[in-house]
Protein backbone atom coordinates (compact mmCIF):
# COMPACT_ATOMS: atom_id res chain seq x y z
CA UNK A 1 0.00 0.00 0.00
CA UNK A 2 1.22 3.44 -0.90
CA UNK A 3 2.08 5.81 1.93
CA UNK A 4 0.58 8.93 0.28
CA UNK A 5 -2.74 7.13 -0.34
CA UNK A 6 -2.86 6.07 3.31
CA UNK A 7 -2.16 9.64 4.41
CA UNK A 8 -4.98 10.99 2.24
CA UNK A 9 -7.45 8.39 3.53
CA UNK A 10 -6.35 9.15 7.06
CA UNK A 11 -6.89 12.88 6.60
CA UNK A 12 -10.08 12.77 4.56
CA UNK A 13 -11.99 9.96 6.25
CA UNK A 14 -10.45 9.07 9.62
CA UNK A 15 -9.57 12.51 10.98
CA UNK A 16 -12.95 13.85 9.90
CA UNK A 17 -14.67 11.01 11.77
CA UNK A 18 -12.92 11.85 15.03
CA UNK A 19 -13.44 15.58 14.52
CA UNK A 20 -17.21 15.44 14.07
CA UNK A 21 -17.58 12.88 16.86
CA UNK A 22 -15.44 14.73 19.39
CA UNK A 23 -18.46 15.34 21.66
CA UNK A 24 -19.48 11.70 21.44
CA UNK A 25 -16.00 10.48 22.45
CA UNK A 26 -15.75 13.09 25.18
CA UNK A 27 -18.99 11.83 26.67
CA UNK A 28 -17.92 8.16 26.58
CA UNK A 29 -14.49 9.01 27.87
CA UNK A 30 -16.19 10.66 30.83
CA UNK A 31 -18.48 7.67 31.38
CA UNK A 32 -15.68 5.09 31.14
CA UNK A 33 -12.86 6.94 32.84
CA UNK A 34 -14.26 9.94 34.64
CA UNK A 35 -16.77 8.37 37.00
CA UNK A 36 -14.23 6.63 39.23
CA UNK A 37 -11.22 7.93 41.11
CA UNK A 38 -7.85 7.63 39.39
CA UNK A 39 -6.54 5.00 41.84
CA UNK A 40 -9.54 2.74 41.29
CA UNK A 41 -9.65 3.10 37.51
CA UNK A 42 -7.79 -0.11 36.67
CA UNK A 43 -9.69 -2.17 39.26
CA UNK A 44 -12.95 -0.72 37.97
CA UNK A 45 -12.20 -1.76 34.39
CA UNK A 46 -10.82 -5.14 35.43
CA UNK A 47 -14.02 -5.92 37.33
CA UNK A 48 -16.04 -4.67 34.36
CA UNK A 49 -14.10 -6.98 32.03
CA UNK A 50 -14.41 -9.81 34.54
CA UNK A 51 -18.18 -9.36 34.42
CA UNK A 52 -18.09 -9.50 30.63
CA UNK A 53 -16.08 -12.69 30.32
CA UNK A 54 -17.99 -14.51 33.05
CA UNK A 55 -21.52 -13.63 31.89
CA UNK A 56 -22.53 -14.27 28.31
CA UNK A 57 -25.58 -12.00 28.74
CA UNK A 58 -23.31 -9.12 29.75
CA UNK A 59 -20.88 -9.95 26.97
CA UNK A 60 -23.77 -10.07 24.50
CA UNK A 61 -24.79 -6.55 25.57
CA UNK A 62 -21.22 -5.32 25.11
CA UNK A 63 -20.96 -6.91 21.66
CA UNK A 64 -24.26 -5.23 20.80
CA UNK A 65 -22.74 -1.87 21.75
CA UNK A 66 -19.70 -2.64 19.59
CA UNK A 67 -22.06 -3.52 16.77
CA UNK A 68 -23.87 -0.18 17.16
CA UNK A 69 -20.52 1.58 17.07
CA UNK A 70 -19.67 -0.36 13.89
CA UNK A 71 -22.92 0.88 12.31
CA UNK A 72 -21.96 4.40 13.30
CA UNK A 73 -18.56 4.00 11.62
CA UNK A 74 -20.00 2.40 8.49
CA UNK A 75 -22.68 5.05 8.15
CA UNK A 76 -20.15 7.85 8.51
CA UNK A 77 -17.56 6.48 6.12
CA UNK A 78 -20.07 5.46 3.43
CA UNK A 79 -21.61 8.91 3.62
CA UNK A 80 -18.20 10.49 3.23
CA UNK A 81 -17.46 8.25 0.26
CA UNK A 82 -20.63 9.52 -1.45
CA UNK A 83 -19.85 13.19 -0.78
CA UNK A 84 -19.15 15.09 -4.03
CA UNK A 85 -15.96 16.53 -2.54
CA UNK A 86 -14.61 13.01 -2.07
CA UNK A 87 -15.22 11.86 -5.63
CA UNK A 88 -11.51 12.04 -6.27
CA UNK A 89 -11.20 8.83 -4.22
CA UNK A 90 -12.67 7.03 -7.24
CA UNK A 91 -9.09 7.03 -8.53
CA UNK A 92 -8.53 4.14 -6.11
CA UNK A 93 -10.67 2.08 -8.50
CA UNK A 94 -7.64 1.76 -10.73
CA UNK A 95 -6.15 -0.53 -8.08
CA UNK A 96 -6.99 -4.20 -7.77
CA UNK A 97 -10.04 -5.17 -5.73
CA UNK A 98 -7.81 -6.71 -3.08
CA UNK A 99 -5.75 -3.55 -2.73
CA UNK A 100 -8.90 -1.44 -2.44
CA UNK A 101 -10.12 -3.78 0.28
CA UNK A 102 -6.87 -3.37 2.20
CA UNK A 103 -7.10 0.41 1.98
CA UNK A 104 -10.67 0.31 3.27
CA UNK A 105 -9.61 -2.12 5.99
CA UNK A 106 -6.99 0.41 7.03
CA UNK A 107 -9.68 3.11 7.24
CA UNK A 108 -12.04 0.97 9.28
CA UNK A 109 -9.39 -0.21 11.71
CA UNK A 110 -8.47 3.43 12.31
CA UNK A 111 -12.02 4.51 13.13
CA UNK A 112 -12.72 1.29 15.03
CA UNK A 113 -9.51 1.58 17.06
CA UNK A 114 -11.07 2.61 20.44
CA UNK A 115 -13.26 -0.52 20.43
CA UNK A 116 -10.56 -2.73 18.99
CA UNK A 117 -8.04 -1.91 21.70
CA UNK A 118 -10.60 -2.52 24.45
CA UNK A 119 -11.80 -5.75 22.81
CA UNK A 120 -8.23 -7.08 22.54
CA UNK A 121 -7.66 -6.40 26.24
CA UNK A 122 -10.90 -8.26 27.03
CA UNK A 123 -9.82 -11.20 24.84
CA UNK A 124 -6.34 -11.26 26.43
CA UNK A 125 -7.77 -11.35 29.97
CA UNK A 126 -10.27 -14.05 28.95
CA UNK A 127 -7.43 -16.15 27.48
CA UNK A 128 -5.25 -15.67 30.57
CA UNK A 129 -8.11 -17.09 32.69
CA UNK A 130 -8.73 -19.95 30.22
CA UNK A 131 -12.19 -18.60 29.44
CA UNK A 132 -11.78 -19.45 25.77
CA UNK A 133 -15.50 -19.24 24.95
CA UNK A 134 -15.56 -15.56 25.85
CA UNK A 135 -12.22 -14.97 24.12
CA UNK A 136 -13.40 -16.48 20.81
CA UNK A 137 -16.74 -14.64 21.07
CA UNK A 138 -14.90 -11.33 21.41
CA UNK A 139 -12.34 -12.06 18.70
CA UNK A 140 -14.69 -13.57 16.14
CA UNK A 141 -17.44 -10.94 16.57
CA UNK A 142 -14.93 -8.12 16.16
CA UNK A 143 -13.19 -9.78 13.23
CA UNK A 144 -16.50 -10.33 11.41
CA UNK A 145 -17.58 -6.75 12.03
CA UNK A 146 -14.25 -5.35 10.82
CA UNK A 147 -14.06 -7.51 7.69
CA UNK A 148 -17.68 -6.83 6.71
CA UNK A 149 -17.31 -3.10 7.27
CA UNK A 150 -14.27 -2.91 5.02
CA UNK A 151 -16.23 -4.89 2.40
CA UNK A 152 -19.09 -2.37 2.53
CA UNK A 153 -16.66 0.53 2.11
CA UNK A 154 -15.10 -1.15 -0.93
CA UNK A 155 -18.53 -1.64 -2.43
CA UNK A 156 -19.25 2.07 -2.04
CA UNK A 157 -15.88 2.94 -3.49
CA UNK A 158 -16.35 0.71 -6.51
CA UNK A 159 -19.98 1.31 -7.36
CA UNK A 160 -20.09 4.96 -6.34
CA UNK A 161 -23.41 4.45 -4.53
CA UNK A 162 -24.96 7.87 -4.04
CA UNK A 163 -26.39 7.59 -0.55
CA UNK A 164 -25.23 6.60 2.95
CA UNK A 165 -25.55 3.05 4.30
CA UNK A 166 -28.34 3.68 6.82
CA UNK A 167 -30.29 5.90 4.46
CA UNK A 168 -30.13 3.19 1.83
CA UNK A 169 -31.47 0.48 4.12
CA UNK A 170 -34.15 2.64 5.77
CA UNK A 171 -37.62 2.70 4.28
CA UNK A 172 -39.76 5.50 2.89
CA UNK A 173 -41.54 7.90 5.23
CA UNK A 174 -45.15 7.05 6.03
CA UNK A 175 -46.19 9.52 8.70
CA UNK A 176 -47.15 13.19 8.59
CA UNK A 177 -44.37 15.44 9.84
CA UNK A 178 -45.39 18.52 11.81
CA UNK A 179 -42.74 21.22 12.01
CA UNK A 180 -41.62 20.40 15.55
CA UNK A 181 -41.03 16.75 14.67
CA UNK A 182 -38.71 17.31 11.68
CA UNK A 183 -35.47 17.32 13.75
CA UNK A 184 -36.57 14.02 15.34
CA UNK A 185 -37.07 12.48 11.92
CA UNK A 186 -33.58 13.66 11.07
CA UNK A 187 -32.12 12.06 14.21
CA UNK A 188 -34.03 8.84 13.60
CA UNK A 189 -33.02 8.63 9.93
CA UNK A 190 -29.57 10.17 9.76
CA UNK A 191 -28.16 9.79 13.27
CA UNK A 192 -29.47 6.32 14.01
CA UNK A 193 -26.34 4.91 15.70
CA UNK A 194 -26.07 7.94 17.98
CA UNK A 195 -29.74 7.64 18.92
CA UNK A 196 -29.52 3.89 19.56
CA UNK A 197 -26.36 4.14 21.63
CA UNK A 198 -27.79 7.00 23.70
CA UNK A 199 -31.06 5.17 24.31
CA UNK A 200 -29.27 1.96 25.17
CA UNK A 201 -27.07 3.76 27.68
CA UNK A 202 -29.87 5.79 29.31
CA UNK A 203 -32.23 2.84 29.59
CA UNK A 204 -29.43 0.73 31.05
CA UNK A 205 -28.75 3.52 33.54
CA UNK A 206 -32.42 3.67 34.55
CA UNK A 207 -32.66 -0.11 34.72
CA UNK A 208 -29.60 -0.33 36.97
CA UNK A 209 -30.81 2.46 39.21
CA UNK A 210 -34.35 1.16 39.65
CA UNK A 211 -33.26 -2.42 40.26
CA UNK A 212 -30.19 -1.88 42.38
CA UNK A 213 -31.28 1.05 44.53
CA UNK A 214 -34.09 0.36 46.99
CA UNK A 215 -34.86 3.26 49.34
CA UNK A 216 -36.81 2.72 52.57
CA UNK A 217 -39.20 5.51 51.66
CA UNK A 218 -39.81 7.11 48.25
CA UNK A 219 -37.38 9.96 47.65
CA UNK A 220 -37.73 12.08 44.54
CA UNK A 221 -34.16 13.41 44.60
CA UNK A 222 -32.22 10.37 43.32
CA UNK A 223 -34.62 9.88 40.42
CA UNK A 224 -34.32 13.59 39.54
CA UNK A 225 -30.53 13.25 39.51
CA UNK A 226 -30.78 10.19 37.27
CA UNK A 227 -33.15 12.01 34.90
CA UNK A 228 -30.66 14.88 34.83
CA UNK A 229 -27.98 12.40 33.72
CA UNK A 230 -30.38 10.99 31.14
CA UNK A 231 -30.88 14.47 29.68
CA UNK A 232 -27.12 15.16 29.73
CA UNK A 233 -26.57 11.90 27.83
CA UNK A 234 -28.67 13.48 25.06
CA UNK A 235 -26.39 16.55 24.88
CA UNK A 236 -24.77 15.41 21.62
CA UNK A 237 -28.19 14.80 20.06
CA UNK A 238 -29.33 18.29 21.09
CA UNK A 239 -26.22 19.70 19.42
CA UNK A 240 -27.00 17.77 16.25
CA UNK A 241 -30.57 19.07 16.27
CA UNK A 242 -29.37 22.68 16.58
CA UNK A 243 -26.91 22.24 13.75
CA UNK A 244 -29.59 20.69 11.60
CA UNK A 245 -31.95 23.59 12.28
CA UNK A 246 -29.35 26.02 10.96
CA UNK A 247 -28.42 23.85 8.03
CA UNK A 248 -31.73 22.54 6.71
CA UNK A 249 -34.52 24.39 8.51
CA UNK A 250 -33.45 27.99 7.87
CA UNK A 251 -36.40 28.35 5.49
CA UNK A 252 -38.78 28.02 8.45
CA UNK A 253 -37.65 31.45 9.68
CA UNK A 254 -39.81 32.90 6.90
CA UNK A 255 -42.88 31.06 8.22
CA UNK A 256 -45.21 33.21 10.34
CA UNK A 257 -45.25 31.04 13.45
CA UNK A 258 -45.57 32.77 16.86
CA UNK A 259 -42.56 32.29 19.10
CA UNK A 260 -44.63 30.72 21.89
CA UNK A 261 -45.88 28.12 19.42
CA UNK A 262 -42.32 27.39 18.36
CA UNK A 263 -41.30 26.99 22.00
CA UNK A 264 -44.19 24.63 22.71
CA UNK A 265 -43.05 22.69 19.63
CA UNK A 266 -39.55 22.53 21.12
CA UNK A 267 -40.93 21.10 24.38
CA UNK A 268 -43.05 18.59 22.46
CA UNK A 269 -40.02 17.52 20.47
CA UNK A 270 -37.96 16.82 23.59
CA UNK A 271 -40.93 15.15 25.26
CA UNK A 272 -41.10 12.75 22.31
CA UNK A 273 -37.34 12.23 22.32
CA UNK A 274 -37.31 11.36 26.02
CA UNK A 275 -40.59 9.45 26.02
CA UNK A 276 -38.89 6.02 26.24
CA UNK A 277 -37.12 7.03 29.46
CA UNK A 278 -40.27 8.65 30.89
CA UNK A 279 -42.20 5.46 30.23
CA UNK A 280 -39.40 3.34 31.62
CA UNK A 281 -39.28 5.12 35.00
CA UNK A 282 -42.80 3.85 35.69
CA UNK A 283 -40.97 0.72 36.70
CA UNK A 284 -39.85 2.67 39.78
CA UNK A 285 -43.32 3.98 40.64
CA UNK A 286 -44.25 3.69 44.36
CA UNK A 287 -40.74 2.55 45.32
CA UNK A 288 -38.94 5.67 44.09
CA UNK A 289 -41.64 8.29 43.61
CA UNK A 290 -45.31 9.06 44.19
CA UNK A 291 -47.92 10.17 41.70
CA UNK A 292 -47.64 13.75 42.99
CA UNK A 293 -43.95 13.78 42.02
CA UNK A 294 -44.73 13.08 38.38
CA UNK A 295 -45.22 16.72 37.22
CA UNK A 296 -41.83 17.58 38.68
CA UNK A 297 -40.08 14.71 36.90
CA UNK A 298 -41.87 15.42 33.64
CA UNK A 299 -41.18 19.16 33.73
CA UNK A 300 -37.50 18.69 34.57
CA UNK A 301 -37.04 16.10 31.81
CA UNK A 302 -38.53 18.42 29.20
CA UNK A 303 -37.28 21.82 30.40
CA UNK A 304 -33.62 20.80 30.72
CA UNK A 305 -33.07 19.84 27.03
CA UNK A 306 -35.07 22.93 26.00
CA UNK A 307 -32.68 24.98 28.14
CA UNK A 308 -29.61 23.32 26.60
CA UNK A 309 -31.12 23.90 23.15
CA UNK A 310 -31.67 27.59 23.95
CA UNK A 311 -28.07 27.95 25.13
CA UNK A 312 -26.97 26.90 21.65
CA UNK A 313 -28.88 29.88 20.23
CA UNK A 314 -26.51 32.24 21.99
CA UNK A 315 -23.70 33.79 19.98
CA UNK A 316 -20.20 32.34 20.02
CA UNK A 317 -21.20 29.03 21.59
CA UNK A 318 -19.04 26.29 20.16
CA UNK A 319 -18.88 22.58 21.01
CA UNK A 320 -16.37 23.04 23.77
CA UNK A 321 -18.10 25.93 25.54
CA UNK A 322 -21.44 24.13 25.18
CA UNK A 323 -20.18 21.06 27.03
CA UNK A 324 -18.42 23.23 29.58
CA UNK A 325 -21.62 25.19 30.29
CA UNK A 326 -23.55 21.92 30.56
CA UNK A 327 -21.06 20.64 33.08
CA UNK A 328 -21.37 23.78 35.22
CA UNK A 329 -25.19 23.71 35.04
CA UNK A 330 -25.29 20.05 36.06
CA UNK A 331 -22.90 20.64 38.94
CA UNK A 332 -25.15 23.44 40.17
CA UNK A 333 -28.33 21.44 39.65
CA UNK A 334 -26.84 18.53 41.55
CA UNK A 335 -26.64 20.59 44.74
CA UNK A 336 -29.96 22.35 44.16
CA UNK A 337 -31.75 19.02 43.70
CA UNK A 338 -30.28 17.73 46.96
CA UNK A 339 -32.15 20.52 48.74
CA UNK A 340 -35.37 19.28 47.11
CA UNK A 341 -36.74 22.56 45.77
CA UNK A 342 -39.86 20.86 44.40
CA UNK A 343 -41.62 22.10 41.28
CA UNK A 344 -39.85 25.47 41.59
CA UNK A 345 -36.62 24.17 40.04
CA UNK A 346 -38.05 22.82 36.75
CA UNK A 347 -40.31 25.89 36.50
CA UNK A 348 -37.30 28.20 36.81
CA UNK A 349 -35.40 26.15 34.20
CA UNK A 350 -38.41 26.30 31.88
CA UNK A 351 -38.76 30.07 32.27
CA UNK A 352 -35.02 30.56 31.75
CA UNK A 353 -35.20 28.38 28.63
CA UNK A 354 -38.08 30.43 27.24
CA UNK A 355 -36.36 33.74 28.06
CA UNK A 356 -33.21 32.63 26.23
CA UNK A 357 -35.19 31.15 23.34
CA UNK A 358 -37.34 34.16 22.65
CA UNK A 359 -34.50 36.67 22.98
CA UNK A 360 -32.06 34.77 20.74
CA UNK A 361 -34.09 32.78 18.21
CA UNK A 362 -34.53 35.54 15.64
CA UNK A 363 -31.17 37.13 16.36
CA UNK A 364 -29.22 33.93 15.88
CA UNK A 365 -27.07 33.83 12.83
CA UNK A 366 -25.25 30.81 11.59
CA UNK A 367 -21.68 31.03 12.73
CA UNK A 368 -20.77 27.41 12.90
CA UNK A 369 -17.12 27.78 11.98
CA UNK A 370 -16.09 26.79 15.46
CA UNK A 371 -18.50 23.88 15.61
CA UNK A 372 -17.39 20.69 13.92
CA UNK A 373 -19.86 19.88 11.17
CA UNK A 374 -21.79 16.72 11.98
CA UNK A 375 -21.29 13.79 9.63
Amino acid at each position, binding site marked *: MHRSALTILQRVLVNHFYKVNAGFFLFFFFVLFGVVKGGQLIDYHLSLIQGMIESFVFLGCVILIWFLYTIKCVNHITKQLTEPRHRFLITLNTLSSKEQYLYMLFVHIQVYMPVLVYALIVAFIAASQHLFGAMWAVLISNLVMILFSAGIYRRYLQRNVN*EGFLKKISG*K*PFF*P*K*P*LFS*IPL*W*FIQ*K*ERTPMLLITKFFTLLLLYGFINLYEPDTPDIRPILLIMMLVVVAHAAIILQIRF*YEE*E*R*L*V*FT*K*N*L*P*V*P*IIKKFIGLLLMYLLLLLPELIFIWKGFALHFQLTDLPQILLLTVSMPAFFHSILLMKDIDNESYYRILFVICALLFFVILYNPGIVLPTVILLAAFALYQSHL*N*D*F*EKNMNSIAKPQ
Partner: protein
Amino acid sequence: MLQFDSVQKHYGTFLALDIPSLSIANGVYWLQGENGSGKSTFLKMIGGLHPFAGNISLNGCSIKKNRVSFLQQVNYAEAETLYPLFLTAKDLVQLYCYTKKSTEQKALVLLEQLHIIDAYQKPVGSYSSGMLKKLSIALAFIGNPKWILLDEPLITVDAEAVAVICSLVNRLHSEEDISFIITSHQPFKTGQLGISQTLSAAHQTIIMNHA
Protein backbone atom coordinates in the same frame (compact mmCIF):
# COMPACT_ATOMS: atom_id res chain seq x y z
CA MET B 1 -44.89 50.07 0.82
CA LEU B 2 -41.69 48.63 2.23
CA GLN B 3 -39.88 51.06 4.47
CA PHE B 4 -36.27 50.77 5.66
CA ASP B 5 -35.04 52.94 8.53
CA SER B 6 -31.40 52.99 9.64
CA VAL B 7 -30.94 49.39 8.53
CA GLN B 8 -27.46 48.01 9.01
CA LYS B 9 -26.23 44.48 8.54
CA HIS B 10 -22.91 43.38 9.92
CA TYR B 11 -21.14 40.07 9.47
CA GLY B 12 -18.87 40.11 12.49
CA THR B 13 -17.20 43.50 12.23
CA PHE B 14 -17.76 43.79 8.47
CA LEU B 15 -20.54 46.16 7.47
CA ALA B 16 -22.32 44.36 4.64
CA LEU B 17 -25.25 46.72 4.14
CA ASP B 18 -26.09 50.22 5.33
CA ILE B 19 -29.47 51.61 4.30
CA PRO B 20 -30.14 54.89 6.15
CA SER B 21 -33.58 55.34 4.58
CA LEU B 22 -35.37 53.69 1.69
CA SER B 23 -39.00 53.39 0.62
CA ILE B 24 -40.10 50.87 -1.98
CA ALA B 25 -43.60 51.37 -3.32
CA ASN B 26 -45.64 48.49 -4.69
CA GLY B 27 -44.37 47.14 -7.98
CA VAL B 28 -42.13 44.57 -9.61
CA TYR B 29 -38.48 45.32 -8.94
CA TRP B 30 -35.38 43.87 -10.43
CA LEU B 31 -32.55 44.03 -7.91
CA GLN B 32 -29.23 44.19 -9.70
CA GLY B 33 -25.70 43.99 -8.40
CA GLU B 34 -22.45 42.12 -8.59
CA ASN B 35 -21.71 38.95 -6.68
CA GLY B 36 -21.22 39.76 -3.02
CA SER B 37 -22.89 43.16 -3.31
CA GLY B 38 -25.53 42.28 -0.70
CA LYS B 39 -28.55 41.32 -2.83
CA SER B 40 -29.26 38.05 -1.03
CA THR B 41 -28.51 39.63 2.36
CA PHE B 42 -31.05 42.35 1.57
CA LEU B 43 -33.75 39.80 0.70
CA LYS B 44 -32.90 37.61 3.69
CA MET B 45 -33.35 40.54 6.05
CA ILE B 46 -36.80 41.27 4.62
CA GLY B 47 -37.66 37.56 4.64
CA GLY B 48 -36.81 37.27 8.34
CA LEU B 49 -33.81 34.99 7.85
CA HIS B 50 -31.12 37.44 8.90
CA PRO B 51 -31.02 39.60 12.01
CA PHE B 52 -30.09 43.27 11.48
CA ALA B 53 -29.99 46.64 13.22
CA GLY B 54 -32.67 49.22 12.44
CA ASN B 55 -36.18 48.56 11.22
CA ILE B 56 -38.02 47.26 8.21
CA SER B 57 -41.77 47.77 8.02
CA LEU B 58 -44.47 46.92 5.54
CA ASN B 59 -47.38 49.37 5.48
CA GLY B 60 -46.52 50.31 9.05
CA CYS B 61 -46.13 46.72 10.27
CA SER B 62 -42.61 46.29 11.70
CA ILE B 63 -40.77 42.99 11.42
CA LYS B 64 -39.19 43.70 14.79
CA LYS B 65 -42.44 44.47 16.62
CA ASN B 66 -44.93 42.29 14.79
CA ARG B 67 -42.93 39.54 13.16
CA VAL B 68 -45.75 37.05 12.58
CA SER B 69 -48.02 39.57 10.87
CA PHE B 70 -45.08 40.86 8.78
CA LEU B 71 -44.12 37.38 7.63
CA GLN B 72 -47.74 36.60 6.72
CA GLN B 73 -47.30 39.31 4.09
CA VAL B 74 -43.78 38.51 2.88
CA ASN B 75 -42.82 35.29 1.16
CA TYR B 76 -39.28 34.45 0.20
CA ALA B 77 -37.57 31.91 -2.03
CA GLU B 78 -33.84 31.55 -1.43
CA ALA B 79 -31.36 31.18 -4.26
CA GLU B 80 -30.35 27.75 -3.02
CA THR B 81 -32.70 26.46 -0.37
CA LEU B 82 -31.70 23.43 1.65
CA TYR B 83 -34.65 21.33 2.75
CA PRO B 84 -34.58 18.20 4.93
CA LEU B 85 -33.82 15.49 2.39
CA PHE B 86 -36.40 13.04 3.71
CA LEU B 87 -39.33 15.47 3.45
CA THR B 88 -41.54 15.22 0.38
CA ALA B 89 -42.84 18.19 -1.60
CA LYS B 90 -46.22 17.29 -0.13
CA ASP B 91 -44.85 17.64 3.43
CA LEU B 92 -43.43 21.07 2.60
CA VAL B 93 -46.54 22.29 0.78
CA GLN B 94 -48.71 21.21 3.70
CA LEU B 95 -46.39 22.95 6.17
CA TYR B 96 -46.46 26.19 4.14
CA CYS B 97 -50.24 25.99 3.64
CA TYR B 98 -50.75 25.50 7.37
CA THR B 99 -48.53 28.38 8.46
CA LYS B 100 -49.38 30.76 5.60
CA LYS B 101 -53.08 29.91 5.89
CA SER B 102 -53.70 28.67 2.39
CA THR B 103 -55.04 25.62 0.58
CA GLU B 104 -53.02 22.85 -1.02
CA GLN B 105 -55.00 23.09 -4.25
CA LYS B 106 -53.42 26.38 -5.40
CA ALA B 107 -49.94 24.99 -4.86
CA LEU B 108 -50.80 21.83 -6.76
CA VAL B 109 -51.86 23.85 -9.81
CA LEU B 110 -48.53 25.67 -9.81
CA LEU B 111 -46.54 22.45 -9.31
CA GLU B 112 -48.39 21.01 -12.29
CA GLN B 113 -47.55 24.04 -14.42
CA LEU B 114 -43.91 23.67 -13.41
CA HIS B 115 -43.98 19.94 -14.27
CA ILE B 116 -42.95 18.63 -10.85
CA ILE B 117 -46.32 17.29 -9.74
CA ASP B 118 -45.19 13.71 -10.51
CA ALA B 119 -42.55 14.01 -7.80
CA TYR B 120 -45.00 15.45 -5.28
CA GLN B 121 -44.79 12.50 -2.92
CA LYS B 122 -41.11 11.79 -3.38
CA PRO B 123 -38.46 12.93 -0.87
CA VAL B 124 -36.75 16.12 -2.00
CA GLY B 125 -33.43 14.31 -1.59
CA SER B 126 -34.23 12.64 -4.92
CA TYR B 127 -34.86 15.97 -6.71
CA SER B 128 -32.54 17.58 -9.25
CA SER B 129 -31.38 21.15 -8.56
CA GLY B 130 -33.90 22.45 -11.13
CA MET B 131 -36.77 20.61 -9.46
CA LEU B 132 -35.72 21.97 -6.06
CA LYS B 133 -35.65 25.47 -7.48
CA LYS B 134 -39.14 25.06 -8.92
CA LEU B 135 -40.41 23.73 -5.60
CA SER B 136 -38.93 26.62 -3.62
CA ILE B 137 -40.56 29.10 -6.04
CA ALA B 138 -43.91 27.32 -5.79
CA LEU B 139 -43.68 27.48 -1.98
CA ALA B 140 -43.03 31.23 -2.18
CA PHE B 141 -46.41 31.71 -3.88
CA ILE B 142 -48.37 29.98 -1.13
CA GLY B 143 -50.66 32.08 1.09
CA ASN B 144 -51.76 35.67 0.70
CA PRO B 145 -48.51 37.64 0.56
CA LYS B 146 -48.26 41.32 -0.30
CA TRP B 147 -44.62 40.93 -1.31
CA ILE B 148 -42.77 37.99 -2.79
CA LEU B 149 -38.97 37.98 -2.81
CA LEU B 150 -37.34 35.73 -5.39
CA ASP B 151 -33.58 35.27 -5.21
CA GLU B 152 -32.22 34.17 -8.57
CA PRO B 153 -35.45 32.40 -9.61
CA LEU B 154 -34.31 31.74 -13.15
CA ILE B 155 -31.11 29.82 -12.55
CA THR B 156 -31.20 26.07 -13.17
CA VAL B 157 -34.83 26.10 -14.39
CA ASP B 158 -35.82 25.33 -17.97
CA ALA B 159 -37.12 27.92 -20.46
CA GLU B 160 -40.70 26.71 -20.13
CA ALA B 161 -40.59 27.16 -16.35
CA VAL B 162 -39.09 30.65 -16.78
CA ALA B 163 -42.09 31.59 -18.93
CA VAL B 164 -44.51 30.17 -16.33
CA ILE B 165 -42.81 32.05 -13.50
CA CYS B 166 -42.72 35.35 -15.41
CA SER B 167 -46.37 35.15 -16.46
CA LEU B 168 -47.36 34.30 -12.89
CA VAL B 169 -45.45 37.32 -11.56
CA ASN B 170 -47.12 39.58 -14.12
CA ARG B 171 -50.59 38.17 -13.40
CA LEU B 172 -50.30 38.31 -9.61
CA HIS B 173 -49.04 41.88 -9.76
CA SER B 174 -51.75 43.13 -12.10
CA GLU B 175 -54.65 41.14 -10.62
CA GLU B 176 -53.82 40.88 -6.93
CA ASP B 177 -51.42 43.81 -6.51
CA ILE B 178 -48.69 41.56 -5.18
CA SER B 179 -45.26 43.20 -5.33
CA PHE B 180 -42.00 41.45 -6.16
CA ILE B 181 -38.30 41.95 -5.66
CA ILE B 182 -36.38 39.67 -7.97
CA THR B 183 -32.65 39.26 -8.19
CA SER B 184 -31.24 37.89 -11.40
CA HIS B 185 -27.92 38.02 -13.16
CA GLN B 186 -29.67 36.96 -16.34
CA PRO B 187 -31.40 39.76 -18.27
CA PHE B 188 -35.10 39.23 -18.90
CA LYS B 189 -36.39 38.99 -22.44
CA THR B 190 -38.13 42.14 -23.66
CA GLY B 191 -41.69 42.20 -22.39
CA GLN B 192 -41.27 38.93 -20.50
CA LEU B 193 -41.56 40.58 -17.10
CA GLY B 194 -43.34 43.84 -16.33
CA ILE B 195 -40.51 45.46 -14.37
CA SER B 196 -41.65 48.66 -12.65
CA GLN B 197 -38.20 49.81 -11.65
CA THR B 198 -34.76 48.52 -10.83
CA LEU B 199 -32.84 48.57 -7.57
CA SER B 200 -29.07 48.47 -7.28
CA ALA B 201 -26.95 46.83 -4.68
CA ALA B 202 -23.54 48.48 -4.59
CA HIS B 203 -21.14 50.16 -2.19
CA GLN B 204 -22.75 48.38 0.77
CA THR B 205 -26.17 49.90 0.22
CA ILE B 206 -29.33 49.55 -1.85
CA ILE B 207 -30.54 52.40 -4.02
CA MET B 208 -33.49 52.93 -6.30
CA ASN B 209 -32.54 53.53 -9.94
CA HIS B 210 -34.76 56.32 -11.20
CA ALA B 211 -35.67 56.01 -14.85
